[in-house]
């Protein structure tokens, strides 16, 4: 019996024992909780905005409401100081109604631009110290005490939403935060949806709004472009949804794939950098090779020193 119990067998037994123990003690490998799935699923409490371009009359009531709720000064630089007249999202505009004017006089549409509150936001993935964060109900917010002003969010955002205060010594990133601190926390809906007189932009749970959007499409299928909701799948899905009579491209909404950008950017690196295993493995491999060549070098150096009597340079 003892003769047959070789070292190899003992080794195998140890591996078996270790494996059993480790499966019992260590937590099961996280299979379900992928950090950036290609197609993220919205949590059940995710809120959303639904903007219907066919209803919006371009009254811009949402813009001063947004400015008031967020304490932003109206952008009067173009109007000579009498009117809020921004030319796009900028350092004092988090929400804007833009006009699309087609070649024919009667072909026009309005679009409301603000942060899309993506399900897997590229800006949050890129933000180095977690200044931009996805908070409760899915609102993407900015924290001034963590931001270093690298502007990576502006590079990352496919909708070009975050704006940097170029003219401020203490610059902030200006973007719609779903009125998270101002209103959501007090159980109020965002200022823009509360102000909209026509119901062109409405607030609600994402699932409910998606169902409502599909309802509108099914009751009047010819009214809506491509009979689909923009934001349902774009860039992995957003929490601002659009219905439009003209193409989304014309409204200035970019054509994006359905894969989350965070997934595209981190699918390889998240494996390599998992517990720093890649860098540590690389350090081990390089360390062995360097150590070998270093010892060779040292022995040669000492031999030369013995021969010539001169110390090597450091």
């Amino acid at each position, binding site marked *: 019996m003892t003769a047959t119990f070789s070292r190899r067998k003992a080794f195998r037994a140890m591996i078996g024992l270790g494996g059993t123990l480790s499966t019992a003690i260590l937590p099961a490998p996280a299979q379900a909780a992928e950090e950036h799935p290609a197609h993220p699923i919205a949590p059940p409490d995710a809120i959303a905005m639904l903007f219907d371009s066919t209803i919006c009359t371009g009254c811009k009531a949402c813009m001063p409401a947004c400015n008031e709720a967020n304490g932003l000064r109206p952008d009067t630089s173009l109007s000579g100081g009498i009117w809020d007249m921004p030319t796009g999202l900028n350092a004092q505009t988090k929400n804007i109604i833009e006009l699309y004017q087609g070649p024919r006089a009667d072909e026009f549409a309005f679009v409301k631009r603000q942060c899309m509150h993506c399900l897997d936001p590229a800006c949050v993935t890129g933000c180095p110290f977690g200044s931009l964060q996805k908070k409760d109900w899915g609102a993407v917010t900015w924290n001034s005490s963590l931001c270093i002003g690298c502007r990576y969010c502006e*590079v990352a955002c496919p909708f070009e939403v975050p704006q940097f205060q170029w003219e401020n010594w203490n610059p902030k990133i200006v973007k719609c935060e779903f009125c998270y601190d101002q209103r959501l926390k007090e159980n109020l809906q965002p200022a823009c949806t509360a102000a909209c007189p026509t119901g062109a932009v409405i607030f609600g749970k994402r699932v409910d709004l998606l169902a409502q959007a599909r309802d509108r499409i099914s009751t009047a299928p010819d009214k809506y472009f491509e009979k689909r909701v923009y934001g349902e799948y774009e860039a992995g899905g957003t929490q601002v949804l659009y219905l439009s009579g003209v193409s989304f491209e014309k409204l200035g909404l970019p054509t994006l794939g359905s894969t989350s950008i965070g997934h595209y950017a981190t699918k390889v690196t998240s494996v390599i950098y998992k517990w720093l295993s890649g860098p540590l493995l690389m350090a081990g491999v390089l360390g062995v*090779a360097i150590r070998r060549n270093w010892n060779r070098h040292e022995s040669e150096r000492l031999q030369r020193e013995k021969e010539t009597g001169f110390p090597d340079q*450091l």
Partner: protein
Amino acid sequence: MNLLEATADKRGTTLINHWQCGVPVTRGPVLTPLLLSLIGLAALGLALAAVRFFSPLGPFSGMNDVYAWGIWKTFNVMTLTALGSGPLALGLAAWVFNRQRLHVVMRTALVSGFLFYATGLLALGFDVGRPWNFYSAVLPWRWNTESAMLEISICMPLYCAVFLSFEILPLFLERLYYTGNDRARAFLRHVSPSIRKVYPFAIVGAYVIPLMHQSSLGGLMLLAGTKIHPLWQSPVLPLLYLIAAGLCGFAFTIFLLLIVCLRYSRTLDAGVLAELANLLSGVCFVFLAVRLGDLIWRKELHTAFAFDRMSLLFLAETGLILLPGLALRNRRMRQTPRALLNLAAMAVLGGMFYRFIPTSIAYAPPHSTSYFPSVPELIMGGGYIALGIVAFVLAINYFAVLPGEASTWNHTFRPFGWPRKAAASSTPFEPAAAPAFERGI
């Protein structure tokens, strides 16, 4: 003794497996008119940077919310640190792949690399809008570990301030050793064994960390997604950025050595340069193979031959890398200084093209506006580069950076006036005993 002889590497039988080949420039005035004008530019750039620190970014740059990254990031950091990857490329070749001859030119690569990183980080420091929040870098619970930006903002300063500084430390210690008093020398004799102990471990970090952040620089552009032209936007961007860093590292070291040795009329070992050129051509081919494979895999090869603006840029970039790669396969080319200089310059340019284009020229968001750096932005960007050049010229004049001339590659030569009594006890310097080197330039 016999054992040592038996195990001695035959490639290291010449003196060049040793570090004692660095010699400072000893001839000619340091403050030439060219250097003075560079000092002027650097001073102007730094003065503007100082003013910028107390002023918003707007008046100092042409950046806007569409092109939120200007030349300070895209050129001074993302492009020029590729040229500063000489320590990484040469270090890996010398220490990991045991190309011992390259130790001679390592100091040149180290000093230039350090200066590229230091000036790049300086540019970055004046580019970020809220630098006072950067202390988060030492608070790990604030780290967003999936961000490539985090990796860069921590690893780049760490690499420059700790690992590269450690690697160039011998320059300063050596100067102190030869110019200082007896107490300083005793102290250095006391600490140098511990430096030797730490050294092999430290250089492991000095290679792993740039491997990480040079690839992360490419990883940065992944999040920009469809904003970047499909010829450049690709999942292998991080790998290609890393290979381009190696390419630029080798090419720029050759270029710099040739330029500096021409300027100070020093001889250079053509064998070392030929070995560098050989490695450079290998890296060129690896780069092109990955680039081509990626384009075929993503089925974007037709875009490369559409002969529109982006396609022509791509072809220029590829040509600038392919031509040196092919030409340097030829041994005659590798040993002709003029050809080597031109080909290395082309490879540097090609690598810089690859690093710069996806960040700026091929970066076209849908709501595109235009961006061209403003005058203060250009002066500051140029000022940082001028600062690097000035520092390099001073370094080669006052420290043993450049490889010594063949005749001085002897232990009896002491760069800073070695005390006479030590030299007197040895056998006198015999030129005939020095190994025969090919004369470079």
